[in-house]
């Protein structure tokens, strides 16, 4: 790209880049391409890997490293380029990698998702961003029918190395159409991999793993965690750091009850566990990381040790992730249970807007403590 500096009226400098129309011979129209210079905006830099990072920067660093590592990787979505990303996950990437590899799309999820999947058929490795996973519903036919099922239907001929990513589930005050959790729906599809990171290190390691993975992965992030900082291990700073797909992590060991959860609720469960410890209940917290493939051995081994199970998620209860976890325990470890399993889920309602109602629609720490105690036969008896 040729760069020409021009001064704006307010003194800020803009880099006006021109590029030839693509394709051989070129279009007759030269379209000016304007983006903010780092000097005027101060934000067009990719994240630097550090000892403490927030989830946003961790994701950004993962995208940056994978774009460098493999020329077949490219990023596509609404506002990912010039706007620096609706949630700034892709900041600095356009400036660093150019328009060929960081593609702003029109607001046409079905169209651009289909294009991403088609390019993956050919052999590219797209990372398709949905501004909200709720919008992916417009494109869900391509995620499931075009991507997830393709390897199987083609008898192994066509694989689809694509990553779909975006913020999933409840945020704060965004209302019914922007708050649904899709872990359960996507988690039921064979052929798809469903990943849900919790902290910054997981976001980085799992996204890098997903991009390198040859199968379609849907990467469900959490908007409320984007700005939260976490310590990063030394190993996680390596440019080849990945976390294994299909393996859960035991965040805290315990012996009285197993709490299985993922994403943001991991943090709340850990805090609840501290409080429960004071009451003499030792809770083991499992962070799934991978909704599909599900780490059944980890969950079963834990429940065989503790004899009690509580599942915890923010999504809807009916046919939710918790149901599959309870089913897997019933299949393999039923006779180790000392109490019926409990599931803690979001309320069985569309997400309301009013702040007090919204608070009732998502599990709280008090809910976790009360329910764990109930499962351990302490506190209020079950109805």
């Amino acid at each position: 790209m040729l760069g020409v500096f021009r001064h704006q009226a307010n003194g800020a400098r803009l880099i006006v880049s021109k590029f030839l129309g693509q394709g051989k011979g070129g279009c007759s129209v030269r379209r000016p391409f304007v983006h903010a210079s780092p000097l005027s905006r101060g934000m067009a830099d990719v994240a630097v890997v550090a000892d403490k990072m927030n989830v946003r920067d961790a994701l950004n660093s993962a995208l940056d490293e994978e774009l460098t590592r493999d020329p077949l990787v490219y990023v596509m979505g609404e506002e990912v380029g010039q706007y620096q990303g609706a949630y700034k996950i892709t900041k600095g990437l356009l400036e660093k990698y150019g328009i060929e590899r960081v593609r702003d799309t029109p607001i046409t999820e079905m169209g651009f998702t289909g294009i991403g999947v088609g390019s993956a058929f050919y052999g590219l490795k797209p990372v398709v961003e949905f501004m909200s996973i709720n919008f992916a519903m417009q494109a869900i036919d391509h995620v499931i029918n075009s991507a997830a099922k393709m390897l199987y239907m083609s008898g192994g001929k066509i694989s689809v190395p694509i990553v779909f990513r975006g913020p999933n589930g409840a945020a704060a005050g965004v209302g019914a159409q922007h708050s649904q959790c899709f872990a359960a729906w996507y988690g039921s599809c064979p052929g798809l991999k469903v990943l849900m990171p919790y902290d910054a290190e997981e976001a980085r390691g799992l996204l890098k793993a997903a991009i390198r993975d040859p199968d379609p992965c849907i990467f469900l992030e959490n908007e409320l965690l984007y700005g939260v900082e976490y310590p990063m291990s030394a190993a996680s700073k390596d440019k080849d750091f990945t976390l294994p797909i299909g393996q859960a992590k035991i965040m805290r060991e315990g012996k009285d009850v197993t709490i299985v959860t993922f994403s943001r609720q991991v943090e709340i469960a850990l805090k609840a566990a501290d409080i429960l410890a004071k009451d003499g209940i030792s809770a083991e917290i499992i962070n799934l990381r991978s909704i599909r493939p599900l780490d059944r051995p980890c969950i079963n081994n834990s429940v065989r040790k503790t004899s009690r199970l509580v599942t915890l998620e923010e999504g809807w209860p009916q046919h939710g992730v918790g149901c599959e976890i309870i089913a897997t325990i019933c299949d393999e470890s039923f006779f180790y249970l000392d109490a019926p399993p409990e599931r803690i889920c979001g309320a069985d309602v569309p997400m309301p807007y009013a702040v007090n109602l919204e608070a009732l629609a998502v599990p709280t720490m008090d809910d976790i403590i009360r329910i764990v105690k109930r499962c351990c036969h302490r506190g209020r008896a079950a109805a």
Partner: protein
Amino acid sequence: MAVRQALRRAGGRLLATQGAMAPAALGVAGRGLSTSAEPITLEIPVPFKGHNVEPPSRTVETSAQELTEFFRTMFVMRRMEIAADSLYKSKFIRGFCHLYDGQEAVCVGMEAALNDKDCIITAYRDHCTHLGRGGTVLEVFAELMGRKDGCSLGKGGSMHMYNKKGGFYGGNGIVGAQTPLGAGLAFAQKYLKVEGVTLAMYGDGAANQGQLFEAMNISALWDLPVLYVCENNHYGMGTAEWRSAKSPEYYKRGDYVPGLKVDGMDCLAVKQAVKFAKEYALKNGPMVLEMDTYRYHGHSMSDPGSTYRTRDEISGVRQERDPIERIRKLLLSHEIATVAELKQIEKDAKKEVEDALSKAKESPSPDSEELFSNIYRKSYGAKSYGADRKEVVVTLP
């Protein structure tokens, strides 16, 4: 007399092949007759119609070899589809089966203008398209019958045939989904600087799909080398075009994307249009090609095809516009082949199809283990389950 006329037209080189035209030599090489590559110039009878583009010339260059190959290939395709009809009625084929007979000129004409750098993606009426991209009749029949030697190992069925090496991406069951997928293939070709185009094929039924317009918008914006090929057979299942589209001028529906309307029953017109459009797309981006074609069968094997159109209409098209008959007339009138030679080609084609059919019938069903294969490329030891979770647990390969 006829032989000398052909020689004069084709030039001296034909002298070398003169021996091949003797009846005694027929059936030995399977082709015999005039397989000269000497150019023959013809006029396309039905004019092109352009939308925001000057249509190509109606003068097309072909050869005896090419016309003979058109005839042979279309005949094989026709026999294959008719055999599939019988197979379905005798319950060897289950589920959906959408037959292409009548539309052969589209995929055969296209292939004459394409090479192995180009890609094709289409919908569910894909048996002949698969063949055109290098598939075999055996693997089509075996796939239709759900056997191991099917092109998708028997796991896809009629609507899911693929040949990545040949640049054929299916075989898609969701109406319209293949159009942005095709734009994606073109995106990849451009990204990797491959000198090829993608033909994203769809029907008049799919032409109203929103995602088609989403794909057209992005491909025009990004100058993707994609050709949107609308196989307008005038009926989207049982709904005629005038009942489903406010504007059935599908070649104009791209608006800012230029379009061409083509007589889809004429191999040479299709070839000319695709050649022209490919050159355009490599430089400038997408174009729509509306192929005016016709299917003799109903939408699928469960549709008699006569409740929404008259039998007269079907037989009328067969009489006047059949693509194979058109080439036959050309071969005869240009004395490239005699009636007897064409009969031989037909006989060989029938045999080829019959042999493939018997071989396909012998192909076994897939092993039960195949239920769990090709879920993931990389399974990380994940398990999958059958209906009885205790009995059927598999660590995915």
